């Protein structure tokens, strides 16, 4: 193995493959640390989404009485919450991932891209646990599971790329501009209301649908609902296209930007 250190480093992919186990180790570390010294341990991964589901179902389903495509409101809201939680948590954690690990960046070399990307794996584990719980819930509540459930891997892949693209941008930007540490949590909070989490995207007035669809999470969340329940509506094709485009473009540009900035991380952090 010949390593050349020049301003343009060509062997990045090779390094990434050599360090592939580190993805797993970082994710493993974060999961382990999160539930260390916690009495309920990993069961928090179940309790958290269940609790929010109960609150949402009570407020939006029972009190506000929002429509839910004739599906039990609790599972309807959970199907929307899963991808949103994954995206929100991944955005917040990837954003802080580099600046929270200055010692790793200053004292040891490995492809830095592993740090933000492993954060996504951490939340994907939470996501999988909650998704399994959703399917069990649907089974108990006699919600029909159609063939569309087979498209679930595609949507998981889609949201992973969306998170990766967003995360690469945010993590690299935060190294230079710490403002993003403040902006991102705010946007995440705000973003939940402009995404179809607690309600279905069909309640948006027709003349605003084009604007609403610009949020890439709309297509993804609608996609998950379609995969779980088979419910669809006229704008789904448009919103999904936007989401796929966003995932591809953000990942490619994010990779480019991250690679460009990576060289200066140790000098700037």
């Amino acid at each position, binding site marked *: *193995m*010949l*390593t*050349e*250190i*020049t*301003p343009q*480093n060509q062997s990045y992919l090779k390094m990434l493959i*050599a*360090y592939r*186990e*580190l993805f797993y*180790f970082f994710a*493993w*570390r974060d999961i*382990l*640390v999160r539930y*260390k*010294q916690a009495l309920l341990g990993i069961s928090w991964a179940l309790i958290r989404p269940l609790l929010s589901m109960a609150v949402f179902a009570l407020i939006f389903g029972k009190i506000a009485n929002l429509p839910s495509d004739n599906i039990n409101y609790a599972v309807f809201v959970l199907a929307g919450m899963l991808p949103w939680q994954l995206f929100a948590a991944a955005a917040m954690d990837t954003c802080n991932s580099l600046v929270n690990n200055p*010692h*790793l*960046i*200053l*004292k*040891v*070399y*490995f492809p830095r891209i592993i740090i933000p990307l492993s954060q996504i794996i951490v939340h994907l584990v939470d996501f999988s646990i909650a998704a399994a719980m959703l399917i069990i819930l649907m089974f108990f509540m006699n919600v029909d599971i159609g063939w569309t459930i087979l498209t679930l891997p595609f949507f998981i892949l889609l949201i992973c790329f969306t998170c990766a693209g967003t995360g690469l941008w945010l993590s690299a930007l935060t190294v230079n501009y710490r403002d993003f540490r403040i902006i991102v949590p705010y946007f995440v909070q705000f973003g939940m209301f402009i995404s179809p989490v607690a309600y279905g995207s069909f309640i948006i007035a027709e003349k605003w649908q084009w604007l609403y669809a610009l949020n890439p999470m709309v297509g993804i969340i609608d996609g998950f609902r379609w995969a779980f329940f088979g419910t669809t509506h006229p704008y789904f094709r448009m919103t999904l296209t936007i989401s796929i485009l966003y995932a591809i473009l953000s990942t490619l540009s994010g990779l480019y930007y991250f690679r460009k900035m990576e*060289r*200066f991380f*140790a*000098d700037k952090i």
Partner: protein
Amino acid sequence: MSHVVKVQNISKKYLIQHNVQEGYSTLKDAISNQIKKIIKRLRHPFKMVQQSKHTTEEFWALQDISFTINEGDRVGIIGRNGAGKSTLLKILSRISEPSSGSIKIRGRIACLLEVGTGFHPELTGRENIFLNGAILGMKYREIKDKFDEIVAFSGVEQFLDTPMKRFSSGMHARLGFGIAAHLDSDLLIVDEVLAVGDAQFQAKCLKKMNELGASGRTILFVSHDVGSVLTLCNKGLYLEKGHLKAQGLIDHCVNSYMSDCRLKSLHWEGDEGDEHIRFTHASLSQEQDTREYFYQHESATLTIDYEVLKNAPQLIIVVSVWNQRNQGLAYTHTGLDIQNFSRYTQTGKHRLSFQINGNLFHEGEYAVKIECLLHGIKHIITDQISLKYNVFASQKNTTFGHLSNQQGISLGNQWLLNTRSR
């Protein structure tokens, strides 16, 4: 022999920002500064308010460094604080990129710029071994295979399942070094790690690095302790203010470094004394070499030039050796040479030479003090003439590294062993 590292003309530039006018750090300061500015404006409406200015200055941490390292070399990087040693290591270990120039490194790099990078306080010792190993670039299988060795080296068996936050800092350092030392690499980069642990740990680390060096591993080592660089390394790089000032054999580099350190003066020139005697020169040197430091086995020759102006039989020249803590170790004077005693004090110019047996001293920093007195009457010279020199362990004997607490003088090396074969 093939080279492992080839560095060509690398430079590293940093931009330093100077905030000329006002540097607010908190919101409160920012607001109060704004208010002050407004008041100033109101009082002097036509005067231009000076804008805050950022000026950036280029700082070259490294400039135009080129060298090659061959397979099996143990290279010591020496230089004063801020000479660019750490920057160079950071570039070689790929943490930061050079502003210009190119580096080629063949093989796997293990770098240890800090002991236990990435240890997580909440995880147990066992978990941290895997995590840290992976961060350093080991595969899961590799760590598993080396696990027992690492644990044995660091001596933390008892605490493997204790969270790292309850570890003492010594255990922390031992485990960190243990992991890095067991990484199979073609190039091991080590920075000042030895500064963390106690003397026993330092000795253990040096011994391990010696073993690695003996097995043909290429090692790059930075330390302020010239003694450990000399015992460990065969090649050296001497950096000063970002420039490579010397490279090649370690003796040559250390020599050049030591001669730049003003504190160690092997020569004294001057004119001290009274109406009886005047001293003009004193120096310490090896028999053949002209190094600025000594190895333990060498004897040092002390040369003193003086002139006796007025014959006085009570005149005595005293030579004494002092250690770093200013404790007198050894002592002699011309009065002990009973036969020739009077010759020392005849009027005229003299050159006095004296051999200081090198085997008498442990490694360390010593001062030779030259005093002169009129016995029973007065001290002519007390503190004016002193020479400082360093003694290092001879390079050949590296097996045992440092033994701690070497004080006083050495009993030397005159062993006699009788073995009766059974």
